Each structure stands twice: as C-alpha cells, then as structure tokens.
C-alpha cells in the first residue's frame, strides 16, 4: 500500500509535513547545492527584519549534551534584499515549494511593515511570526511573554498580511496557554512550537560564557520532551494547526510530535548533524507509519478533520 504524506494547513497544501526550521537552512541557497529542495514539504526561511541585521558577536554557537546553543541574533539582509534577491531566487528554482516567512522586529511597526511586504511575495504562503527569539535585546521575547502584547502584535500583523499568520511561541514562559489563547483570538491561523529554550555554557578555563552573547537558545534532541509537552498543552486548548518543532531528527520523532498534536513538522538542529535530515525523514515516513498500520496522517492531530 502506498502512503499519502500530504497534509493541509491554512495557506499550505503540503506534499509532506516536513520543512526546515527557520534559521537552520538560511534562504535555501546552501543546502540547495546538495539536494533538490523540491523534496521538502515546505521551507521556513531565516528571520526577516525591516533593516539588515548583523547579529551578535562570535562565538555564536556552543555544544551541549544532545543539544546546542545558538545566539546568531537574527542576522539577515533585511526585508528589501530578501524581497529582491532571496525570495526570487527560490521562486525561480523551486516554483512549487511553499515558503513560510519568519518575521521578526523591534517594534510593532517593524513587524507590521515586514509582514505587509513579505506576504506579497508570490511564493510566500504563510508567515511565521517570531515573537520568541531569545537572542535579541528587543522584540523577541518581549512580545512573546505577555498575552496582551502577543495579541496586539498578532492582530496588527494579521490585518496587513496577505497570507495566514502562524505565531511562533516561546517555551520560556510560566504558562503558554493564555498566550496561545490570546493569539488565537487575535486572528492567528495557527501556531509554531517551539522556539529555543534559554541556556548558557561556561568555559571552565576563563570562567566566562562561551557565547559572546552569554546566553543562547537551546535546541536539538535535548528539548524534544519540552516541545512534545508544549505542543500537547496547546493542542489541549486550541484546534488551530500547529507546526511542531524541537529536537526532531528522525521519522519517529516527527510522528511522536504529530501524536502530541502537531500538524506539520519543522526540522532545525538535525540539519547540522545530518545535512540530508529532511529528505531522510521524508523517505522514512511511510515505513514509520506502516509500523502502526498507518498510511497517512488522517488520524493524527485531532483537528486534522477540520482543515
């Protein structure tokens, strides 16, 4: 029996549920040298901000048990360069690859400006509103830790966006549920879960943090149980679709997160361990489903029917 890996989310008719996570795959040009990105279900590009950003000083990454810390600091060429170069490059080579644009900013006005502009790109099918970056002084967590601030920002972004807006929530909160509810009420099309936890490594020799930014975002296998918990928790209070992520490295991990309530899966850190992680997972999904006598995702994520 052949498998049907398709999943359908607002704005996103995907041939399979697997997509590179924002910030772990640039704008596709690098990994695009090594395999055909058309294999992917979708692709979440690196955060776009209004102005070009240089990000933080180096070192920007450090290793942790079954995980890593990053403090890239949203380096990106800015919305204009992304509109002029990055998105057209993708559109030309991969006209059928749905792009999800990760959007960040310092102020509401920044977010709104970028959402309005980037959602007009013909290959951008959805926005992932990044209100959860732990590595920048402004924006990021400020909007992501208060239900009111998150709702106000979401509403403003939804109003100007031509495509559905998924809000990427932070795991670094006491209770994610009021934030998720507020964001849903403000018009979000779905959630993206989870961004990185905040962590630190110290060099015992210098007794200083390894990262120039001191703290960084913890990602990779180590955070998978936290991602499962938060996806499960948000699923328990909302029927909106969830793009799940956090420590997915195998088809088994992907199914576990989908069993928790995710409708599609983003893969971040695993790309670094294994550059072919995404195509490998996509290839392994039919056999993984077959282990449980399944051939599609229909019975996953309670809300799948609704879509």
């Amino acid at each position, binding site marked *: 029996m052949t498998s049907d890996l398709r999943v359908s989310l607002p704005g996103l008719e995907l041939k399979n549920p697997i997509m590179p996570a924002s*910030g*772990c*795959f*640039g704008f596709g*040009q*690098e*990994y695009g*040298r*090594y*395999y*055909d990105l058309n294999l992917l279900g979708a692709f979440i590009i*690196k955060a776009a901000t209004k102005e*070009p950003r*240089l*990000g933080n000083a*180096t*070192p*920007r*990454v*450090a*290793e942790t*048990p*079954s*995980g*890593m810390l*990053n403090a*890239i600091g949203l*380096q990106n060429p800015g919305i204009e360069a992304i509109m002029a170069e990055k998105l057209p490059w993708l559109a030309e080579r991969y006209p059928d690859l749905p792009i999800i644009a990760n959007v960040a900013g310092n102020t509401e006005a920044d977010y709104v400006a970028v959402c309005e502009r980037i959602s007009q790109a013909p290959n951008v099918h959805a926005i992932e509103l990044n209100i959860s970056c732990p590595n920048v002084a402004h924006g990021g967590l400020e909007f992501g830790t208060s239900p009111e601030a998150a709702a106000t920002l979401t509403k403003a972004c939804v109003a100007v966006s031509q495509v559905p807006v998924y809000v990427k929530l932070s795991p670094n909160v006491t209770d994610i549920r009021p934030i998720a509810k507020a964001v849903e009420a403000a018009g979000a099309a779905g959630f993206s879960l989870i961004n990185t936890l905040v962590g630190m490594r110290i060099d015992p020799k210098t007794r200083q943090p*390894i990262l120039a930014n001191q703290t960084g975002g913890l990602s*990779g*296998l180590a955070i998978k149980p936290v991602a499962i918990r938060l996806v499960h928790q948000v699923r328990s209070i909302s029927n909106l679709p969830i793009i799940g992520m956090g420590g997915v490295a195998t088809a088994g991990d992907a199914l576990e997160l989908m069993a928790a309530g995710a409708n599609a899966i983003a893969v971040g*850190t*695993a*790309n*670094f*361990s*294994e*550059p*072919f992680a995404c195509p490998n997972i996509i290839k392994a999904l039919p056999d993984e489903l077959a282990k449980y006598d399944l051939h599609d995702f229909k019975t996953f994520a309670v809300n799948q029917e609704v879509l």
Partner: protein
Amino acid sequence: MLPLEWLLTIQDQTEIAPGIFELRLSGDLAQEKVQSGQFVDVKIPSDALLLRRPFGIANVDAAHNTITLLYRTVGEGTQILSECSQGTELSVLGPLGGHGYPIDQLKPHQKALIIGGGTGIPPLHELSRQLVAKGVQVQHVFGFANQESIFYQAEFEKLGPTAYATNDGSYGYKGHVGLLLDEQFADAATTYDAIYACGPKGLLMAVDNRFSAHPNAYISLEERMACGVGACYACVTKLKVDPTIQLKICDDGPVFKTNEVLL
C-alpha cells in the same frame, strides 16, 4: 547537485606527538578535487554530540583513496575520535570551504612562505605538497609550544626548509613566530611571491599586519561552526573595509586575503 557526505573508514590512527593524532580515512572523498585549506566536518560517533567537528585536510592521496587529518585532542569530541579503532566508519562532510589557498597564480620556481602554528599546521601540509608539485619553492616557518609537541617535521622538511619557533626555546628559535619572522624573515614581503598562514589568532594577526599590503598573502580562520556549509550564520567575520558586510568562514573562507577581514 554537489557531493557532500561520505562514509569514510578509519584506515589507521596514530598518536604522532603527545595528544596529536594522525588519522587516515579511506573512501571516495579522496577522489574529489580538494583545494588546500579546505576542510571536512566529521560526525563524532557519540549520540550526545550533535555538532560535527571541522578539521583541515592535511593530505589527499587519490592513488590510495585516502585523506589524512591531523588533530589535537582538546575536548570531548576529539577525545572520542582518538579512541575510534581501525575500521570504524565515520560520516564526513567535505570538501568544505568555498575558498582554500589559491595557488594557480604561482609559477614554477617562484617562492612561497608558509607560516603555521600548532593545529593550524595540518592544512599547510597539503598546501605545501601542492605547491612543491607545481615546482614552487617553499619555506616553512612553524611555531609550537615546545619540542615535544612538534609533528610532521620530516614530512615538511622533505618539501622545503623549515624554521621552528618554540615558546620555551626547547627547539629552534625561542619565542613566538612573529618575532622569528621579524628576526629571520624581515624581507619576506618582498622575497616571497606568496605568503600563506594558518594558526592561532595571535599568529594570524602578526601575519595580517606584516603582510597587509602583499598582493598574494592569505590567512585561514577558525570559528565555532554548526552547519559548516553557510546556512546557519554561526561563523561570521566582518570585512575590514566595511564591517557591515559579514562573510561566513565556512563558506566564504576559511581562507581570506590579508587585510580583508577584521581579526
């Protein structure tokens, strides 16, 4: 599509100086065109280490289908690697680094100065080999902590004269490479048609300063990396002329011209 990932087999591994290992890996990566200065990114066989480890390519032997890495055990990853036995298969990405050491501009009998320190020296071996194969005359200037930690002395001396500096003076010149350059290679900027360097930051800064105007002088940088292919922006460095422009060491380097980037 470019090739990227290889399953290489440990042919043999030897501790050639205290804590310095020579690792010979066999597999078809050895058939790829490798520019010296390019590197590989090795998956350490440990479930808990997600990040690969970058190492310069010290030797390519297409005839025997092997490449050689030389590395120092500094932390958990290199420790585990050093305990891997013959026959172990390793997933290796490479050759990585969009820019290795340029050598096409040199002609037979021209002269190259190769400056290195510690574990920056490995890629300079492949460089020197390629230069000598072209008929270029090479001079090596290497810095080490002490006599004990010197490795590949015979290999380099086979390729060309080699001057040593050690911190403690236990072998060669006493002091760091910068001082050795000042004292014994004061005319290097005009004597040599090309300058190549790899090593610790201090050494690179010394070379970058001394040969900032040399039209053919190159340094190779290191930085903590995640993807190794240019996708994650972990390993950036700023352009000297315009620090708002950032280059990725893994992809736009690891070799840069002197005076090109902020050290």
